[in-house]
């Protein structure tokens, strides 16, 4: 898994490549937590290059969403979600917990 974080004025765009599983989820968690510690709570997660997400990865997404949405200070918006990742989100009942946008531009437009 590879992560690229780009900080913009209204939100941060985090692009994730590869597999999000028990091996790699801690890295994503640490990256999100580092941003949140700096008072950043508005995230676009670009998942277009994610091949695979297990429940270990889903756990990180939900925990970040809970923290971001507290006090209405922000949220995690998902973008470019591949069919397989969407299937996992759906099976986990996560589709109602996240805004899911087709493009990064649409996702950034939420902030």
């Amino acid at each position, binding site marked *: 898994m590879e992560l690229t974080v780009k900080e913009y004025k209204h939100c941060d765009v985090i692009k994730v490549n590869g597999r999000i*599983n028990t*091996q790699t989820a801690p890295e994503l968690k640490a990256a999100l937590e580092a941003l949140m510690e700096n008072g950043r709570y508005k995230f676009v997660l670009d998942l277009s290059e994610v091949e695979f997400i297990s429940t270990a990865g*889903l756990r990180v997404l939900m925990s970040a969403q*809970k923290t971001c949405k507290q006090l209405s200070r922000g949220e995690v918006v998902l973008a470019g979600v591949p069919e397989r990742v969407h299937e996992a989100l759906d099976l986990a009942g996560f589709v109602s917990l996240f805004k899911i946008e087709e493009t990064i531009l649409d996702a950034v437009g939420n902030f």
Partner: protein
Amino acid sequence: MDFPKTETFPGAGSSLEAINTFVTEAAQAIGLDEDAIFGVQLAVEEACDNIIEHAYAGASKGDIECSCDIVTDGLKIVLRDSGRPFDPESVPKPDLDSPLEERDIGGLGLHFIKNLMDEVRFEFFPGSGNVLTMVKRKTPAG
């Protein structure tokens, strides 16, 4: 590829990719379609996570033996570990629809395994350990 095909991996997160490759090659050799292969990959990943986290309660406490075999219209995968008994009945039912702030993620791994595979059976044999048998059938054509 000759079946059955068995390989043993250290029970650690670092084995997940190799286990994934092993079952993917078997699934492809048997002729499962991409949807079915995706289901197998995710279910096996969740099952191995469960073994490492619950049966062994940590990484590198024992091995995971993975066997793949052909059954009528599909692929049978058997995962064996020598850890403590895993009782699927003890796992909470997954919470799939509470609002975000009340949502609990417990039980999702087992929910994935049961939904992604066509047959799932957990057994425990004192002296040897847990045996998880899963079957994925080919999607009927047309």
